[in-house]
């Protein structure tokens, strides 16, 4: 049903031709044609900042997602397959990790080390990996009871081979769906961190900090805060719809036919 999986991205692939203009003139009404979306309090064109900011958000989100996926899915496979003590330990760690208020800890760390692209990526990868472990492990627990796994074992396949060649393909669907949803969440988290001032430092535009910049001028220049938020929403919502669609696509008989 959710067959309209549109992926709107304000990210303009011709971005390299568009330069953020850091001109200091006064800000204008949102209706001017020279600055389509208006300008921010110190005169920078909002649309350009939006586009450049999307690069940052996307980059951070995607890289941290990839790292988080690799780590999380591997741990999930291992935990599910080997079971027993290893499983217990891994699950405990994930539970404890989920219990920490990561926003505050992330901010402490950023306060200590200073914000930069690598730092942000690492921090967010740390948030990303938990859902993967749980869900992949769940999948593996189901899959490993299937006969072709026992057949492989009897045929003498090594554990590594079983994991990568037999189990992994079975979990790929789940991984893809979770990954799609997670990208959206990563973008939201990155926006929140930069809103609070713990993201990439100032001149570089990031949607969250753009929203923060506009707070003082809400009465006169509401668009500075509102528009980046709309951008965030569009990206996250389309990713979320994409995820829903993917999930339905992979298993139409899924119990969550709620979304038909």
């Amino acid at each position: 049903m959710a067959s309209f999986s549109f992926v709107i991205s304000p990210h303009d692939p011709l971005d390299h031709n568009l330069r953020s203009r850091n001109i200091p003139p006064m800000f204008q009404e949102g209706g001017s044609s020279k600055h389509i979306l208006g300008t921010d309090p110190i005169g920078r064109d909002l649309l350009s900042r939006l586009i450049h900011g999307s690069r940052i958000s996307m980059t951070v989100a995607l890289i941290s997602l990839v790292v988080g996926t690799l780590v999380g899915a591997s741990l999930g496979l291992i935990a599910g397959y080997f079971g027993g003590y290893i499983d217990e330990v891994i699950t405990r760690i994930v539970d404890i990790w989920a219990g920490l208020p990561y926003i505050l800890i992330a901010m402490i760390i950023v306060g200590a080390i200073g914000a930069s692209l690598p730092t942000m990526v690492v921090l967010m990868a740390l948030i990303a990996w938990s859902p993967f472990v749980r869900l992949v492990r769940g999948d593996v627990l189901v899959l490993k009871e299937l006969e072709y796994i026992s057949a492989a074992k009897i045929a003498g396949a090594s554990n590594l081979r079983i994991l990568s060649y037999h189990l992994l393909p079975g979990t790929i669907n789940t991984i893809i769906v979770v990954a799609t949803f997670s990208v959206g969440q990563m973008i939201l988290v990155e926006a929140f961190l930069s809103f609070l001032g713990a993201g990439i430092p100032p001149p570089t535009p990031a949607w969250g900090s753009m929203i923060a910049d506009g707070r003082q001028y809400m009465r006169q220049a509401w668009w500075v805060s509102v528009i980046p938020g709309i951008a965030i929403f569009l990206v996250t919502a389309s990713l979320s719809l994409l995820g829903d669609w993917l999930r339905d696509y992979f298993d139409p008989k899924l119990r969550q036919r709620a979304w038909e």
Partner: protein
Amino acid sequence: MRAFIIRRFFTSLLALSVATMVIFGASRLLGDPRHNLLPQQGYGFNEVEWKKAGDKLHLNDPIPIQYAYWVYDVVRGDFGQDLIDRHRINKKIVPRLWPTAMLAGFSWLLATLIGIPLGILSAVKRNTIWDLMGRIVAMLGYSLPTFWVGILLILIFAVWLRWLPAATMGTGGGFPLRHIILPAITLGWVAMAGYVRLVRSSMLEIMDSEYIKLARAKGVSENVVIWKHGFRNAAIAPLTYGGLLLAGLITGSVAAETVFAWPGIARWAVEAIWTNNLPVLVATTLVFTVAYIVLNFLVDILYVFVNPRVRY
């Protein structure tokens, strides 16, 4: 049952210890606390003062010992001094805990009262306006950044329409309804979205199951069928969702309190970060973590009582 409770208790204890270690480690990462505590003299710090403070704060001992001292202090209720105004932190915690709890509680209530019925309606009246509304609410809750929602609400309701106050808790006595509404919507929306989705899919699943068909075949009225099962799901949903919900409320209150200048713990924590106020930061993070672990523990116990099919 009892074994489960005991096991859960020890797990929680373990989680608590690990969390405190992480927090402690992170706080030490922020650098030598003497930088913030001692007054600077010209180009550096007074040597003697430095050493004295170092001894007093046990900074010359190995890290595990420092950790032990810290835990000892915390357990006795001593969180140290707020670096800004030099007051003892422990006295400042409780007055700020109350607003946060109130906001979180009210938001949760809002989310439950609107979310669950909406989820039920959405499932029962599929492909009608209710269904659409439910799914839109859910999608929005999932994709809108919380802090932005807060800003938007302030813009629409406080700046443009002037119906509701824009910030803080207000100074009137009694329950600050007008002030709490906007922050509560902001905070509660994500939870509401979760409830709608959860309840909707549970209801759909139940409604197609065998015993419902049997009930209908027996001639039980549609309403009874719906409400009997709707309520059963409504009871389980908040609990199943509980742990995630708590984590979401914690993160969300950081957003909501910052945007609405709500005088709670979350905002205090954020300010502490902005002003490099380490002791406060450690104390607030600790409070959040402890609250999360304790509440999670309670929710788990409750869940076992409510749903006897669960065996651990």
